[in-house]
């Protein structure tokens, strides 16, 4: 529970840090840290325009999207404190809750009857399908390394000491960062700044949303980022044998660092050709497979 609270806390400054880092990297001063949330509050105050082709699905989807992300946040573990809602195998529920949100989102996009949204929907469906194996292989690796199946136990048993843990940890961080970028449709899969048909995956699906619904969706997107940030932060915890305050500070620091890294990656990377995206995403699964095989042989005491 506390991880969820901390994650929401870090969500307050997360998008602001990304924007600020991108601005500084391009030589500008950039907006304030709280600017993205001010935009969202502005949207809450506006009224909506609904398309005439849309049905109740269009109105339900933002609620489902946000609700599934909040539910997934509740599964996030925090070291030292016993997890109230965690259980063995909870990462499976985690992945599938996010998939439910995505499904509702995709059909809401198709609800508008526009070719733009159809484009985004079909790309989003394909890319999220291809990232799932990487996520599961990663958790299979971590489960084998720690010998447990609940997120709480996996992460509390994980530390960066030891050569193989370092390797597995580094690969896990890399894969989680990339999955977070792909799921939120950032570089190199998609460019959030442009609104051309060729680059749109996520941005185009919300083209017809306005007002309160759009605010809900943007809140969800920001929370999704800190969700993955929370997973990455858990890899670095626990520190100093489980005291509360250093863990909290490290958690927030890692989230801020993650935001900065995203900002930097977005500034210095170009978008890939759309047809090359599937192979980029499957590369992640290959690397995860490599990590899995190494950890498998390690746990069977076949490599020193």
């Amino acid at each position, binding site marked *: 529970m506390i991880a969820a609270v901390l994650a929401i806390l870090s969500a307050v400054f997360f998008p602001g840090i990304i924007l600020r880092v991108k601005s500084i990297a391009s030589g500008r001063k950039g907006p304030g840290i709280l600017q993205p949330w001010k935009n969202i509050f502005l949207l809450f105050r506006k009224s909506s325009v609904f398309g005439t082709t849309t049905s109740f699905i269009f109105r339900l989807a933002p609620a489902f999207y946000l609700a599934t992300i909040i539910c997934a946040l509740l599964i996030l573990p925090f070291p030292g404190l016993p997890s109230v809602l965690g259980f063995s195998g909870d990462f499976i529920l985690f992945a599938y809750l996010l998939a439910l949100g995505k499904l509702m989102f995709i059909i809401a996009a198709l609800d508008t009857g526009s070719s733009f949204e159809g484009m985004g929907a079909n790309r989003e469906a394909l890319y999220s399908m291809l990232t799932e194996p990487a996520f599961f292989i990663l958790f299979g690796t971590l489960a084998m390394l720690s010998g447990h199946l609940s997120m709480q136990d996996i992460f509390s048993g994980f530390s960066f000491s030891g*050569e*193989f843990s*370092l*390797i597995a940890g580094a690969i896990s961080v890399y894969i989680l960062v990339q999955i977070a970028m792909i799921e939120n449709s950032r570089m190199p899969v998609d460019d959030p700044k442009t609104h051309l048909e060729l680059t749109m995956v996520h941005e185009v699906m919300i083209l017809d949303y306005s007002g309160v619904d759009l605010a809900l969706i943007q809140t969800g997107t920001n929370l999704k980022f800190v969700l993955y940030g929370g997973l990455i932060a858990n890899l670095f915890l626990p520190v100093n044998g489980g005291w509360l305050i250093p863990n909290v500070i490290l958690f927030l620091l890692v989230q801020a660092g993650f935001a900065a890294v995203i900002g930097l990656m977005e500034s210095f990377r170009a978008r890939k050709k759309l047809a*090359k995206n*599937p*192979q*980029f995403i*499957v*590369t992640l*699964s*290959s*690397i995860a*497979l*490599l990590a899995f*095989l*190494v950890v498998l*042989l390690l746990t069977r*005491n*076949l*490599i*020193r």
Partner: protein
Amino acid sequence: MTNMLIIVFAISLIYLSVTERFRIYAGLVGLQGLLLFGLSFLQLDRITLATVLFVAIETLLFKVIVVPFLLFRIINRTGVARVHEKALPSFYSLLFVSLGLLLSVIVAFSMNTTPYNLMFFIVSFFAVYTGLFLIISHRKIFSHLVGFLVIENAVLLLSLAIGSEIPMLLNMGILLDIFVSVLILGIFVMRLRQHIDDLTILKDD
């Protein structure tokens, strides 16, 4: 440390199967040379000092400096297309290479080697598979050269694993192979520059 370098080597192999630009190809081969240099340096306690120094200098000099330099020179001089054509789309080569990773783990596992050697064996089998796969699935002769270089790297990796048994002759052979291939291609290609298209594509499209 050794294991980390070996795993980075394996990751470079995965990227080698997906990239499409010749410069990155050449860069990755250079990176592999650098990793091999590090690995040979770390084998100090297992092999005699003279052999290690020889292998280290050879790797550093040739694989890290000379070979990439020659490769980049070829790219610049001949103006080969920056994106190479393949007979197989990237997505499938990635799947095949992942299959190769699984196969090399299974083969190496069934060989019952010592724990220390297993990583070396796995990644060198994987590198041989990837090198062969690069040669099979690409059309341009430049890619074939890179595949050949990857196989040479694999052989060197394996010889590092076997450790105290490296004969000098094996090293000489590796050196000669590299020189012959790169220099001949370089000389050949630079002389016959106007006929470059006939050389770089093995088959009519």
